[in-house]
């Protein structure tokens, strides 16, 4: 298939690929579907075993076929395939294969959830496989755990939606920031209930204007929606009951990394004593501990030029993500349960013990 050839020709640079594609109008498997922030096609690494090739093909297929599937879930599926087709004979060998496959997948997307999902998967799978009779049995155990993890990630959004249900009451006004599938599923689930009617304020979320996608999506489900400017959030905060955001990553102290503007909302919410709830799946828990806004991994940085032309010599700072410290977050609604920010570290320590 042409797709495979494009993706795996190691020496073709990013720019050239894009240019060629624009010229020939081949729909790009990763670009043309609406994706969450952070997706881009990086140059595929030169080292490419058959197994990682298989994994990457799986991943790309999944991502192309199901627009609603999060990248991390697709990655977990692909990694399970790696386990099934693995020919390694030792635990170290399996870990190495998983690591190589993860590195390959991360070249397709800089989303932190992908990175943390792969790490968590590797850790979860290899954790209990200690002394087994034979390596074949051990491998079977690993595959089972992999399937288990996959099941869990597949159903995580439903779990979060049902856990978040009691937080939305009749007559509430909810503020959300930009487009987030996790938040959408929570709101849609709550809207299906007969007992409550609530309305939603959505910020535009510049510069990619993902708030417009959110408004369209919510309107489809009959939820009364209002679009506001990002800067109007503090002005309207007194009319809001709580703020609900998703997360790109949940960091070790219970803070979150999310679309730029989330921290501002959090500060305004705290000033008005409005709770801030985060809907995040457990595979987004990352072993990162930012001390301040600039202690973040590089991948979350520049979002590119802003829209209107500016004079030469004027710099543009356009970060894609910001870090919201745990002091501003009331609760995290995850598929592991409803957690306080300090409980996130508990879960991570237990897992990485």
């Amino acid at each position, binding site marked *: 298939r042409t797709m495979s050839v494009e993706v795996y020709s190691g020496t073709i640079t990013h720019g050239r690929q894009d240019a060629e594609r624009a010229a020939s109008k081949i729909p790009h498997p990763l670009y043309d579907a609406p994706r969450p922030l952070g997706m881009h096609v990086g140059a595929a690494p030169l080292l490419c075993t058959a197994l990682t090739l298989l994994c990457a093909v799986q991943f790309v297929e999944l991502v192309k076929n199901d627009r609603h599937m999060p990248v991390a879930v697709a990655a977990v599926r692909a990694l399970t395939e790696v386990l099934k087709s693995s020919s390694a004979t030792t635990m170290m060998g399996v870990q190495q294969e998983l690591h190589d496959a993860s590195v390959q997948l991360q070249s397709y997307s800089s989303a932190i959830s992908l990175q943390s999902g792969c790490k968590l998967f590797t850790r979860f799978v290899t954790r209990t496989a200690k002394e087994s009779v034979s390596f074949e049995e051990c491998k079977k155990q690993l595959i089972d755990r992999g399937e288990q993890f996959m099941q869990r990630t597949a159903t995580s959004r439903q779990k979060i939606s049902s856990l978040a249900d009691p937080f939305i009451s009749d007559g509430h006004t909810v503020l959300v920031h930009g487009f987030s599938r996790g938040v959408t599923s929570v709101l849609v689930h709550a809207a299906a209930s007969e007992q409550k009617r609530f309305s939603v304020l959505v910020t535009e979320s510049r510069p990619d204007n993902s708030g417009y996608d959110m408004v369209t999506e919510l309107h489809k489900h009959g939820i009364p929606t209002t679009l506001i400017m990002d800067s109007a959030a503090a002005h309207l905060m007194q009319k809001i009951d709580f703020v609900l955001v998703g997360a790109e990553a949940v960091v*070790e102290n*219970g803070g979150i990394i999310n679309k730029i503007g989330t921290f501002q909302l959090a500060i305004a919410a705290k000033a008005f004593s409005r709770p801030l709830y985060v809907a995040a799946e457990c595979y987004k828990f990352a072993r990162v*501990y930012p*001390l301040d806004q600039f202690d973040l991994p590089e991948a979350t940085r520049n979002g590119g030029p802003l829209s209107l032309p500016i004079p030469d010599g004027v710099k543009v700072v356009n970060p894609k993500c910001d870090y919201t410290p*745990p002091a501003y977050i009331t609760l995290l609604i995850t598929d592991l349960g409803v957690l306080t920010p*300090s409980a996130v*570290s*508990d879960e991570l*320590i237990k897992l*990485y013990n």
Partner: protein
Amino acid sequence: MAESGEQKVPKDVEDHKGGKDKKGAKDIPAKKPKTKAERRALQEAQRAAKAAAQGQKMPAVSQQRPKGGKSRGHEAVVSSALGSKATARSQLNLFSHLDQYEKGSSLSLSIGVTSDIHPAVHRLGLKYANGSIVGSNARAVALMHALKHVIQDYKTPPQKSLDRDLEISIRPLIAFLKRCRPIAIGMGNAINYLKYHITRTAEKSEVEAKAYLCEQIDTFLAGRVHAADKLIADQGASKINDGDVVLTFACSHVVKMVLNAAYEEGKKFRVVVVDSRPRNEGVRMLADLVEIGMECTYVAYHAVSYIMKEVTKVFLGASALLANGAVVSRNGTAGVAMMASSRNLPVLVCCETYKFCDRAQLDSICFNELGNPAELLPRAGERSSAACPAESIEYVAGFADKPTLNVLNLTYDLTPIQFVTAVLTDVGIIPPTSVPVVLREYNRELPMSVS
């Protein structure tokens, strides 16, 4: 137990070794309640009588010398060896529950009388007492090495088993060390670790058991102390960026390793060392850092608020971390942490997990160590000025004779959890709220005890 109303003694301050006396039960109703002055006079009289009685009891006790016997006998031997306690003077009520500081001179005099103290421990105790070994890690490592000597030289008495008797014979050694200088929480955890492993030697022969215990001590030191320090240093170095101004207080071995690791990685940063009286431990830290080649600034404690506006990060060491996330560290740390917090600077505490303690404490008062009051005051010959005239110095220096003058020299203080941003440990960078989780998951071999 009280047999008459006169026994209503709230505390006998001298007898702190055997635990506190229970408060006397309710008075026999017939007696009239005494006023405070009367009770005080009674207390003084009883104390004097007891001191006289003890003076007579000493020779009788030292003849007993039960081998591997009850700990009470050993305790009496130890207290006799260390000299009688300084005569009671007015104690600060707020700190009267702590071990009061005793002048160190009496220690060196009568030691050697008893052969129950192993020479390695004896040496160690003296080093603790005169301040040759300071710092939680240094003390714990030295303690473990000394106990290793003790175990190697230990011979099981006939009719006894090692796993029971060894622990009993270690008790007076620990008591001796406590009298030299109260032990830190990390040291207490290390001792509990050893005791736990002693109980696991039930089925082994003496040679095997001793080898096993020595191996466990080596593992503890290698894994929980030295390897932990290395891990913490790497993590800390990753948190230091070019252009940072790192502030540290007094002298912490782990923080030194962190800064060294960052320097080795080629990061461009400078260090501010904050120092405080009376120990001036910052000088040692400063000298070591300058020798490594770092750009350092040395600042006295009162200038912390001034220097803080240049600082970008604060790294602090710890003596212990408590279950409620509070940090027990050298006196003065809390102030530095609070100052940094007020400017929203990250405060990173470097602490190995063996120093984690199950206790929760809200203030620096309920458990602390009292240091030598004399070192807090300027010495009699020191340079005087109009603001600090020689007569005043001399007057205050004679505080021992003045019943209304108390000098308080606390060794540790407590930094509440809200001023700590992150804790660097051998299990990773964790928020201070996760201390109980680490205790549960990692410290199973250090049975929780409130020492």
